[in-house]
């Protein structure tokens, strides 16, 4: 479906898919990438779409890392806010998670790099759109931080917080992104899942 994405015209009916109703929430495993490790020159998109990435190659020697969260509402506090602007609108994405470890290695390798790094996070939605007629499975893997990068918002660790149990809550924010959402779609849910998992392995 070819779209002139700059014409600000609605091109689809607004209704739910009764074959697969909306479900809130995301899966417990997410993926985080150092944004500078993405090979932007070779990122490819699904034909006819500006928000579906069909290949997200990383630079040689680089890999993504997993984020594991626990409980019934992982990444609670995460959100997307959209607002108009004179140049076409802006989206602000917020990703919240708890680093469930206070080890020196976790501080050295994860928390300290958050101070000034830029990141891309992939969440897997529970509403995967597996029965979507046009793009089955294309709703599953959503990308945050692709355009501007996710950067650290001020985060505070409370030693006696019952929710975090001494873990470090982290909030990453992407501001002024030009799209309301970005997705990964390698052609099917299975292919996209394989693509996401290949991010975790250094290609050699």
């Amino acid at each position, binding site marked *: 479906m070819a779209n002139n994405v700059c014409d600000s015209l609605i091109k689809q009916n607004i209704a739910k898919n009764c074959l697969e109703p909306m479900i809130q929430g995301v899966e417990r495993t997410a993926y985080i990438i150092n944004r500078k490790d993405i090979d932007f020159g070779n990122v490819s998109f699904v034909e006819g779409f500006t928000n579906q990435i069909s*290949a997200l190659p*990383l630079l*040689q020697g680089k890999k993504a890392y997993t984020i594991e969260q626990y409980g019934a509402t992982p990444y609670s506090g995460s959100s997307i806010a959209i607002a108009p602007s004179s140049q076409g609108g802006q989206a602000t994405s917020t990703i919240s998670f708890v680093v469930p470890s206070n080890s020196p290695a976790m501080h050295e390798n994860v928390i300290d790099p958050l101070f000034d790094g830029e990141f891309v996070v992939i969440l897997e939605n529970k509403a995967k759109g597996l029965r979507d007629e046009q793009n089955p499975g294309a709703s599953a893997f959503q990308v945050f931080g692709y355009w501007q990068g996710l950067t650290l918002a001020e985060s505070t660790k409370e030693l006696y917080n019952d929710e975090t149990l001494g873990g470090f809550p982290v909030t990453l924010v992407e501001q002024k992104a030009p799209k309301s959402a970005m997705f990964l779609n390698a052609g*099917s849910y299975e*292919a996209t899942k394989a693509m996401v998992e*290949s*991010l*975790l392995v250094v290609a050699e």
Partner: protein
Amino acid sequence: MTVEQAISMCREWIGRPHASLSATDKKKVERLYSDVLGKHIRKCNCTNRYEDAVAEIYHYLKRGGKMREKSAYILKSGVVIQPKGSSQVYTNDNLTDEVAAAFLLERPNAAGLFVYIPQPTATEEVSPVITKKRRRK
């Protein structure tokens, strides 16, 4: 590594409990699992996943299995290939030279999705775009 060497490595590990495997041993098991079976050890917190992996490798090779033939082509992380008309998805775990070459013939501008593209043989049909990328390498 030969099949005999791989079996010999497995014999060192078989029967050893998870806790006795050092971090180095675990890395070796992961590498061997990938080299022999072309896939990765399951990601879970199961304490016996390395023991299971060693047993799986050992029995596969004893049943006449061969070491996995790795493709000479290497995809970048974050890239999969799904040939037109096929539901099979290829990653570096299961990519073959034939699939990679056919993919590049069909989509010569996709060379940037590969970390490495081998030099062509004398009879191999190659797109000029790929030839140019190889020369730059």
